[in-house]
């Protein structure tokens, strides 16, 4: 792996450009000067340019992940903002949003400012998501206005559902002051109970306490109706059930600012994969039935689900090496993301690569109000270079995160990130 500051002039040649903003696919060179797009077309820079031959490769916008956990402050043993940034870059991501369930949580303008300052030193763009309630305690609103001024681009208590409906309503209403989405981890705590995996045939066979799909859909229903009542923006994270998909589809018919995301693992795996008690597949919300998985894929195809988000959740070996009931929830996912979703959506479900790229570039950007017109002159370069045909087996060597809790080891993935450019840095997967 190589991560270095870009030369003054960099020329990407012979590649196929997929521009999701202009909806165009074409062959051309890109000349990057001082980290910015200088020209696109049949161009060549000065002789001193660093030339990168992209023959047979796809050149597209850098990926954007709306949902990652970088564990800093508090659990720098699992991941830091710097190491997370590199993991992201290796997966083709140039822009990520970090969740606030750190220790202490990002529940004040000062905490948000801490992240923003740390992000300045990173090779990709990192945005803090602020907590909705102080200490994520579900009782007192955080200073959303001031936090937004410091750089928080959305608000969530991710990891902890906002169980109190009145609090969710207040949060949605208050969010209208700054017009950003509320992201609620939708799992009714009472219905979820002790459940560690989806309640179904498999949990029964394995003897593990189950978490019914209703736990998600009840709360998604509540959240969507509250968003409608208050006329506020809502983004549903890590959708995992067919029932929730149906609710989102229906609400989108009447309401504009409802958006949703799905993780790669909910698209690729189903509950049968847990028969080995692999704790790397222990996630919240849990991996569900094949029926749920298929409806998630359909939802991605028909636009009910707007984007892919990894929910990259690093944990130490000790946290995962234990029995299933005690293991922490979550898996890392930045490095494996593209290979996994390209396989399940394009290779296995017939989706076009252009559409997949939208799900990872302009669609998530639009949700947060980030610039989506990246391939225009003068824009700061955020570029991902992909080998779309490379089949590869995921191994420990592919991990850049500080943690290794991934279920993808030994699995075949389709399509690999060759190189990522952002903030005048270039990352090369060698």
């Amino acid at each position, binding site marked *: 792996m190589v991560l270095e500051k870009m030369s003054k002039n960099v020329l990407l040649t012979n590649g196929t450009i997929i521009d999701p903003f202009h909806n165009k696919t074409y062959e051309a060179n890109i000349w990057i000067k001082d980290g910015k797009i200088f020209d696109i077309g049949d161009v060549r820079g000065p002789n001193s340019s660093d030339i990168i031959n992209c023959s047979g490769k796809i050149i597209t916008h850098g990926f954007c992940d709306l949902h990652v956990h970088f564990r800093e402050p508090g659990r720098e043993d699992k991941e830091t903002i710097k190491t997370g940034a590199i993991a992201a870059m290796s997966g083709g991501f140039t822009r990520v949003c970090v969740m606030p369930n750190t220790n202490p949580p990002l529940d004040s303008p000062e905490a948000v400012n801490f992240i923003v300052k740390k992000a300045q030193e990173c090779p990709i763009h990192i945005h803090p998501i602020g907590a909705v309630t*102080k200490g994520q305690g579900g*009782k*007192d*609103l955080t*200073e959303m*206005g001031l936090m937004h001024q410091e750089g928080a681009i959305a608000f969530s208590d991710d990891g902890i559902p906002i169980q109190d409906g009145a609090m969710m309503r*207040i949060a949605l209403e*208050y969010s209208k*002051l700054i017009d950003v989405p509320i992201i609620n981890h939708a799992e009714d705590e009472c219905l979820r109970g002790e459940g560690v995996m989806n309640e179904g045939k498999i949990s029964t066979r394995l003897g593990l306490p189950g978490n019914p799909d209703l736990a998600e859909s009840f709360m998604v229903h509540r959240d969507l109706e509250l968003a409608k009542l208050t006329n506020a923006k809502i983004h549903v994270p890590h959708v995992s059930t067919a029932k929730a998909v149906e609710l989102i589809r229906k609400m989108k018919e009447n309401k504009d600012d409802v958006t949703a995301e799905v993780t790669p693992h909910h698209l690729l795996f189903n509950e049968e994969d847990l028969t080995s008690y692999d704790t790397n597949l222990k996630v919240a919300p849990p991996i569900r039935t094949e029926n749920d998985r298929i409806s998630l894929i359909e939802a991605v195809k028909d636009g009910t689900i707007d984007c892919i988000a990894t929910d990259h959740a690093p944990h130490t070996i000790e946290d995962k090496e234990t029995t299933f009931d005690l293991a922490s929830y979550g898996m890392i996912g930045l490095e494996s993301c593209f290979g996994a979703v390209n396989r399940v959506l394009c290779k296995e479900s017939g989706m076009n690569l252009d559409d997949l790229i939208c799900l990872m570039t302009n669609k998530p950007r639009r949700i947060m109000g980030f610039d989506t017109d990246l391939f225009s002159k003068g824009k700061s370069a955020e570029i991902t270079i992909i080998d779309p045909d490379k089949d590869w087996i995921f191994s420990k060597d592919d991990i850049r995160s500080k943690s290794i809790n991934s279920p993808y080891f030994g699995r075949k993935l389709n399509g690999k990130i060759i190189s990522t450019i952002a903030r005048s840095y270039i990352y090369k997967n060698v």
Partner: protein
Amino acid sequence: MLEQKHLLGLEGYPAKDIQTIIDTALNFREVLDRPIKKVPSLQGVTIVNLFFENSTRTKISFELAQKRLSADTVNFSASSSSLKKGESFKDTSQNIEAMKIDAVVMRHPTPGAPQHLTNFIDSVIINAGDGTHEHPTQAILDMMSLYEKFGKLKGLKIGIIGDILHSRVALSNIYGLKIMGAEITLCGPPNLIPKYINNLGVVCSNNIDDVIEWADALNVLRIQKERMGRGLVPSVREYRSFFGITSDRIKNHKKEIVIMHPGPINRGVEIDGSVADSDQAIILDQVLNGVASRMAILYLLCGGKSTKGE
């Protein structure tokens, strides 16, 4: 003289009666400037101040108004009362009326309590605040103050700022000002503006600077610090940053906007001390106008009657 026997609220109150009250109040304002501030108009009239909820300012204001009119006043506060011994609201009020009184000024924590009281007693009833419903005498003194300053109410642009959801001052002002032809914009944290308030013909905004630019006068409501713990307002500094009437904000707008506040003020929270003390603020005038307005209301509702027993 006035159409309604009681003053329970300003919803549906006749505009001509509001004007009569304001005109009469302006006269009583002059009385309050005399060396001897007394007129005999309510001599022999007995008024009970029935306060089931704590209040210092409103109670003192009413008491002064009553005394300046030469009425006899009696105070009843809930904590020291027979309510503690388990007596019902109905019995309490009827017992008091049995002692031959003419009017009751009541403050109660429950919306609708004064309306309820009309079922049990015959006396004139004046609502000094019923929970989160109305506070008509406050709105009247606010309107009188605006009228005194601008010479009219029709067409005035008034911004009401703060926790509208829990404010009886806001609701009464909305009713009264709309009746008198003023335009109103509400401004505050979106979760503290009632969802259906637009039905009353008001506009809502989250942007305090826009409202300052538009308005002729601002009525700044107190932010109750108790509400901050309950998560409705995240913190003092957040509220101040987005809705505070700070001296910087006023300076940036370079206009002679009139500043009002029903009191008590939280300096440095909803309003800066320097703004409250400035020439643009008519807060202390409001206090004196409060006594004058209440004198007018008492005079118009209780005047011309001898003590009961006729």
